């Protein structure tokens, strides 16, 4: 199902919401260092693995689990809208729903790096690896923000050919009154666009 369904428009929004929920459910069960098995309902697609690798300040186990889940929700929503869904598709700008205002503007500018926009004509896209290592900043009892060191890998089917691509780097998140949003990114993507070059030896 994940990466292989629905379209644009309101129907597609419903599907994307379902996909986000599905990834979220996976994330909620994934607050340890152990990778989570792919959901049975997403055959062939990796689940998002979120783990806390560093806490600056002090965070008890419950608060850490809560923060991981909240950040996981944001990341899963982004991954689904930016890379998965039903292909071919065009609605990649929706990926920035959890980005702050100015960052969403920059995200549109960087659409080809931050989403699978360039592969919108693919037949399918599915995730092969979705890892996020979280570093939290805690001031007293307030979880101020986090950096997610992400490594997302995907495989697109384009003209019947498998084409791997990925995104890695950092997503910066802040917590404002228990609402988490992405305020920064520093990422690179392997575009997956093969460049054929002839060489004689």
């Amino acid at each position, binding site marked *: 199902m994940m990466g292989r369904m629905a379209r644009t428009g309101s129907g597609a929004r419903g599907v994307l919401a379902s996909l986000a929920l599905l990834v979220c459910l996976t994330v909620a069960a994934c607050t340890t260092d152990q990778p989570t098995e792919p959901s049975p309902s997403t055959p062939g697609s990796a689940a998002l693995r979120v783990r806390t*690798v*560093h*806490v*600056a*300040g002090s965070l008890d186990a419950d608060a850490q689990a809560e923060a991981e889940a909240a950040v996981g929700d944001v990341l899963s929503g982004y991954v689904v809208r930016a890379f998965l869904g039903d292909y071919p598709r065009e609605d990649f700008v929706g990926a920035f729903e959890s*980005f*702050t*205002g*100015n*960052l969403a503007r*920059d*995200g549109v*500018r*960087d659409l*080809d*790096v*931050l989403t699978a926009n360039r592969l919108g004509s693919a037949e399918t896209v599915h995730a092969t690896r979705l890892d996020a*290592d979280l*570093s*939290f*900043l*805690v*001031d007293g009892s*307030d979880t*101020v*923000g*986090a*950096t997610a*060191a992400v490594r997302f890998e995907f495989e697109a089917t384009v003209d019947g050919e498998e084409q791997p*691509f990925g995104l890695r*780097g*950092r997503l*910066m998140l*802040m*917590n*404002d009154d228990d609402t988490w949003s992405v*305020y*920064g*990114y*520093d*990422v*690179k*993507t*392997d*575009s*997956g*666009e*093969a*460049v*054929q*070059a*002839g*060489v*004689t*030896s």
Partner: protein
Amino acid sequence: MRNLRHVVRGILLLALMALVVPGAAVRPTTLSLSRVQTAKSVDFDDGVVWVLVLGRDDEDHTDTIELLAFDGETGAASGIGIPRDSWVRLPKGKARINEAWSQGGGEQGGAELAARTVGELVGVDPHFVLVTGFEGFLAMSEEVGEVEVHSPRAFTTDQGLAVRRGPNRFDAEQALDFASSRDNLQDDFARMANNQALLLGYLRSLQAHEEDKGFMEDVTLAALGGLETDLAPTDLYRLAQAVTQVDPNRVTGCLVTGTPFTTGAGAQVIRADKPLAQRLGRDADRDATLDPDCQG
């Protein structure tokens, strides 16, 4: 967006094959290359952001007064150094500008008076004020780790550290010694230039480690403890991340100069060149850059 395109696979291998397989039959080989693109952005403030950085001594004199401008969008940044001995009007009468913070009562009141006083001199209103004392500076520096500083000159610090012209590596204590030393310098402008060199060194250190997991969080936590600021923790965190967008090759620094004179009470002070200060302020306010000749 920084769009960097790299050939990431195959080239070295094929080059090696071409070199080590002499006499191989001439036949076409197909390379499958891919493109890597990068993107970086931090949502802080639009346009040029002005930050007043004050370093105070144990007597609450802010002997380091640096007005920094940066533009995260363009990666440009500049620093305007203000002489601590600038003779200005404060609520209790004429005094050195480095007394503004303490005359304002320190903390929020001191920051506001210092910002207003520097703002009047340079003609811009700082958006944020960051104040640190020796202990706060050391705590933050220790978190960042060793810093490489390109000293504008060779000299011996007040603690006897031999600094060479060009690159030097300092730990936290040495960095503080470098920043605060004045005994063996020609004048206080030389110390101000050293402070700018140190800030640039810390910028490079931040950028060198920003991808280390937890580094920016640890540095920000140290800053939360080591800085006195009206910035909310979330905003300080974002500011720290935003600063890493600055391109060290697009950083310029200038000093507000002035004319030394002795007051009626015998204090040796400086009449700061206000027209120059305001030209520099206008210059940096446009795009966070300064003319290399520092004439505004």
